């Protein structure tokens, strides 16, 4: 169905004091695959996201990118290796413009000595930001506008567009359709498909199960820090997914290993 395995975690655990947030979780992500990550509140989703994005270091287990074992000291290291993360509700700096947000952390500078001193090529970035967003299917207003002036949907579109435009291997989307109207959520799902078509591995975390069923190829269910099910999306419907999530349906098998 999809390409080779690009991102993999094996048996990762994470404890906060005596609380075990993640208990021996393993998963594989293929190129061009959209992997849904679901679980009830406190199931360990955000912990797993933080481990995958480099924000937290696991207490045990291994992380592989393109078959090579990696440890992330910081989100920056994961970012530079090609793993892009869009955090829930917090991807953008509202006082900065669209293009400043798109290029944040990877600014283009002017040529010569002023560039070395960090002077920015503002016009060039405004132009490129617009093009980058368009390429992933996002139409936003002028890229010199502060993000605080955009609607919630437009902001989310910019945040996702930014992540997709920059991601080289893996993109992690934490609740990307939260607080969005139906039409805006539809646009976001379209961007997810664009990322998939680009050959990226996409991890799609959401509470909105219809969106998960609509856009993912495979679903991983977390419960109480453990992965309780890992199966193709075609094996789920809404009722079954809720059942597995809450534990009313006992899982038959765990795919993967």
């Amino acid at each position: 169905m999809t390409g080779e395995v690009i991102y993999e975690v094996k048996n990762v655990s994470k404890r906060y004091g005596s609380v075990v947030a993640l208990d021996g979780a393993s998963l594989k992500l293929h190129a061009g695959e959209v992997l849904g990550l679901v679980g009830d509140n406190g199931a360990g989703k955000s912990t797993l996201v933080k481990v995958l994005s480099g924000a937290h270091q696991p207490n045990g287990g291994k992380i592989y990118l393109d078959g090579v074992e990696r440890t992330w000291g910081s989100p920056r290291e994961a970012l530079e290796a090609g793993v892009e993360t869009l955090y829930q509700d917090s991807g953008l700096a509202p006082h900065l413009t669209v293009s400043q947000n798109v290029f944040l952390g990877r600014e283009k500078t002017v040529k010569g000595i002023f560039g070395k001193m960090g002077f920015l090529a503002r016009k060039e970035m405004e132009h490129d930001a617009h093009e980058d967003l368009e390429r992933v299917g996002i139409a936003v207003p002028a890229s010199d506008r502060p993000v605080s002036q955009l609607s919630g949907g437009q902001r989310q579109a910019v945040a996702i567009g930014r992540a997709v435009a920059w991601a080289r291997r893996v993109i992690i989307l934490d609740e990307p359709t939260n607080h969005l109207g139906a039409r805006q959520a539809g646009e976001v799902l379209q961007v997810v498909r664009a990322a998939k078509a680009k050959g990226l591995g996409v991890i799609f975390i959401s509470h909105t199960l219809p969106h998960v069923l609509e856009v993912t190829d495979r679903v991983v269910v977390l419960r109480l820090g453990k992965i309780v099910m890992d199966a193709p999306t075609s094996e789920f419907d809404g009722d079954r997914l809720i059942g597995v999530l809450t534990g009313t349906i006992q899982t038959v098998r765990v795919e993967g290993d």
Partner: protein
Amino acid sequence: MTNSNQTTARKPGIPAEQKPVPLALTARISTLASNQSTILIGVMVLLIVVFSVLEPKFFSAPTASNILTDWGSVVLIAVGQTFVVISGGIDLSVGAIIGLSGVVSAWTMANVLKVDQTVSGADASGPLLIGTLVSVGVGLLVGLTNAFLINKLRIVPFIATLSTMGAALGLSVIISSGQPIGSANNFSLIAAMDPKTNPLSWALIVVIVVVTIAGLFLHKARFGLYTYAIGSNTFAARGAGINVERHLTLVYALSGALAGLAGMYVYLRLGAGSPSSGTGRELDAIAAVVIGGASLMGGIGRIWGTVLGALILFTVQSGLIMVGVAPDWKKVVVAILIAAAVAAQTLQSKNGRK
């Protein structure tokens, strides 16, 4: 809403219902009217007119020169404060740094460089340069201490800089035994600082150059962008790969170093390093920054606003004295100015949200 035409050259497919980049004329006028610096310039002009009518002597070169000289000492720390406030913090230690750096610098010049009243003219420039470096160095050290307290010990900026303010104040009294350290009264460079003889002194030119460079780095360079990003949304800044702790260290170091430079400026004005020479100045700096339109919540502020804010502050102070208002009223008027500035800002952001 999908992208229509990828190949149209420079400005690809702005959706039709969106407003194009060049704003309509009416929109431009309303933008200009709500523009912070337009308002500030308006206030400034109004103040000059009112004070000049009440007291014709106000409109004169000596008055302007006096205001500018006062402005020089505070604008340096206000510019540092602008970076700090935009990053979402506050630096209360800058006034105390003026006193401490002035004292340490004066002590070094008097006791290490053996500068006394007989040194003058060109002979003074070497020691003064070293004194300036010492002064900036002292400020830098206090700034780095602030950064350490904030980043490593996780103390909120208000408390961290409040403690270094106390420590710096105490140290400057200990070093100077509570007395101004003088010995430099005859320096020709100091004579050149006197606004009565030299409206645009060398020190003031240095201040203006430093403020300009700081403004360029805040508004045109990566350093400023990261400062805004951290103040706007620390989480997003971190997610974008910015080393937030490192950047904040640089911001507080900059604020400290500029306060050290201000310490030298005040030393030159007084002809002595006095432990109390900067007391209360941190509040002037914060006032200038807030009047200039920065938000204490972070993410908002302009150097130009701060420059004008400081200018308004000293125009009011100087004007009130000249029209014969008792000096005690000065603080009340400044307080009203700050409240008005913050209220205007809140109203503006409410309108902007709609």
